[in-house]
């Protein structure tokens, strides 16, 4: 299964890029300070808004900060926000969705109602309101808020999946061995939701990164940390585009897009695994077989 998962170019490309970003998030700040000796926060009063040069590989912002350093450190903040949001969101979704699906009855009704309430709440607007309240508590806080308001969508899908799994024969069979509910949930049902959960997780991750960027754009990110979103926001406030400072405006957006794209590619792979009907033969193989057939027929004559 793992091998099959890794076989497509999309998944491999996606994973590679994604892991690169993870590495960047993990080691970026250290790399910046110890190897490149640049700081994302230091302001170089004497070289403001300079295009890429040897001193500043990606140029500087309007307040003389090094764009490259910001880009590298920004990776961590953006990814932490995405990670926290998706870990939290997915965990709640799994907890609520699987519990509701397995338990049924009153528990199910209550949890479903809760899900629906969260679905109808103006999530982004509330996130916007609340993250204003937290006064830029950093990516973790932003991630938590995004997670808390973003879990409901996936929950319904998980619940209905669990409902259908609950009555699958193998679960019934294990139940008739006297298996406990918790074990049924964890050992029999949950592994089958891995595809869904990981897709949800990855979707949530991208959603989290994008939401953090959106909030940063609205001025709600932490002021002391640099994230890609806050970079775009500052570039916008600094009229980077009008001033032709593409080196400031473009990289963070492209990074988010690249990260999002890599995750989406991985998701393609997961999708194909969880829905085998989406897998189709490599066109080239089919064509080759057909051509061979035609040739064979010719030579037969």
């Amino acid at each position, binding site marked *: 299964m793992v091998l099959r998962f890794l076989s497509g170019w999309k998944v491999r490309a996606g994973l590679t890029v994604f892991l690169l970003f993870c590495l960047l998030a993990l080691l970026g700040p250290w790399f910046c300070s110890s190897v490149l000796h640049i700081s994302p926060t230091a302001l170089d009063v004497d070289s403001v808004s300079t295009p890429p040069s040897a001193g500043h590989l990606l140029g500087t912002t309007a307040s003389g900060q090094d764009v490259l350093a910001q880009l590298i450190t920004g990776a961590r903040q953006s990814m932490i926000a995405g990670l926290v949001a998706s870990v939290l969101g997915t965990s709640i979704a799994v907890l609520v969705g699987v519990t509701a699906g397995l338990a049924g009855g009153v528990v199910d009704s209550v949890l479903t109602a809760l899900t629906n309430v969260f679905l109808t709440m103006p999530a982004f607007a509330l996130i916007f309101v609340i993250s204003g309240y937290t006064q830029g508590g950093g990516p973790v806080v932003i991630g938590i808020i995004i997670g808390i308001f973003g879990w409901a969508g996936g929950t319904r899908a998980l619940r209905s999946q669990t409902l259908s799994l609950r009555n*699958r*024969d*193998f*679960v*019934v*069979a*294990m*139940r*008739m*061995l*006297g*298996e*406990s509910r918790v074990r049924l949930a964890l*050992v*029999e049902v949950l*592994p*089958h939701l891995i595809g869904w959960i990981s897709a949800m997780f990855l979707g949530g991750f991208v959603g989290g990164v994008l939401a953090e960027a959106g909030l940063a754009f609205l001025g709600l990110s932490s002021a002391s940390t640099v994230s890609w979103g806050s970079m775009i926001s500052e570039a916008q406030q600094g009229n980077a585009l009008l001033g032709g400072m593409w080196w400031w405006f473009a990289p963070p957006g492209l990074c988010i897009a690249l990260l999002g794209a890599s995750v989406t590619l991985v998701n393609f792979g997961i999708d194909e695994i969880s829905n085998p009907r989406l897998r189709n033969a490599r066109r080239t193989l089919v064509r080759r077989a057909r051509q061979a057939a035609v040739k064979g027929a010719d030579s037969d004559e």
Partner: protein
Amino acid sequence: MPDPAVLEAVDVSMRFTVRGGLGRTATVRALEHVSLRLHRGRTVALVGESGSGKTTLARLFALMYQPTSGEIRLRGEPVGVRRGSTARAYYSEVQMVLQDPFASLNPMHTVRHNLRRALRLHHFDGDLEERMHELLRRVSLTPTQDFIGKLPHELSGGQRQRVSIARALAVAPKVLLGDEPISMLDVSMRLDLLNLLASLRDEEGLALLYITHDIASARYLAEEICVMYAGQLVEGGPAEQVIQNPQHPYTKLLLEASPDPARTVSAAGQSSFLPIADAGEPPSLIDPPGGCRFHPRCPVAKAECRTAFPARTSAADGHWTNCWLYTSESEAS
């Protein structure tokens, strides 16, 4: 019938409430006043059309639902739906083999996992590994070490079904409920499985409930056949009696419709398909016909068939039926 029933259903009825698209609800009357007994070392076959309630009865035996009325008795003791360790105690005596061997094993778990869980849950305290191999041997999955580590997708349908049976046997049950255990298997492998079930019954003294569509296989395996139609038991008795001398018009229809190549023996070389009269379809269980539910399709239906369900008429050899045709007779006699 010498010894008392191990497991019996006493006058059970089952109703389901279903929800329609716009939240409408309706009641499915899936079983009506069904009684059935399973005895040690004997097989009862339950045959009937799709949707007649066979699975529902099996599930009632497996305590997956609480019957709407009536009760399930284990060795004469009424049992109800339970949880936790009491459920486990019940399941250590009653086990079920499901229809679809492809669905009844978790694709993520090995044969070993399945067997070990079964043994662990039922407090097996001997040599676990040894017992697992023994179980696999019991269901003829040999050499056992080849099979124990396999995942379901590495097994054929017949092998999976054997694993299911081994898993059920792991708890050393007294009763085995087979819900169409062979219908999903390849033709060539069905008989082997039936033979396996027969040997388990004979050697372990299992009480076996064999649910099937295929009346011929019922005859092959079971001593006793019960025919179910639209949630009601309409006929039952010793297998040969029911097959060779069907009483109820539905049983007759079923036998007529069942493929039997032997019928063409006389007409050599030429296909001679035996057509049957267009007898309509089984009714919806949401609003089933009153009285005997078979009456709309019955060629010999009488007025009373529409109004009331006939009482049971039994012959000396244990062959019984619920049909007005015979009720009046017995009353007359």
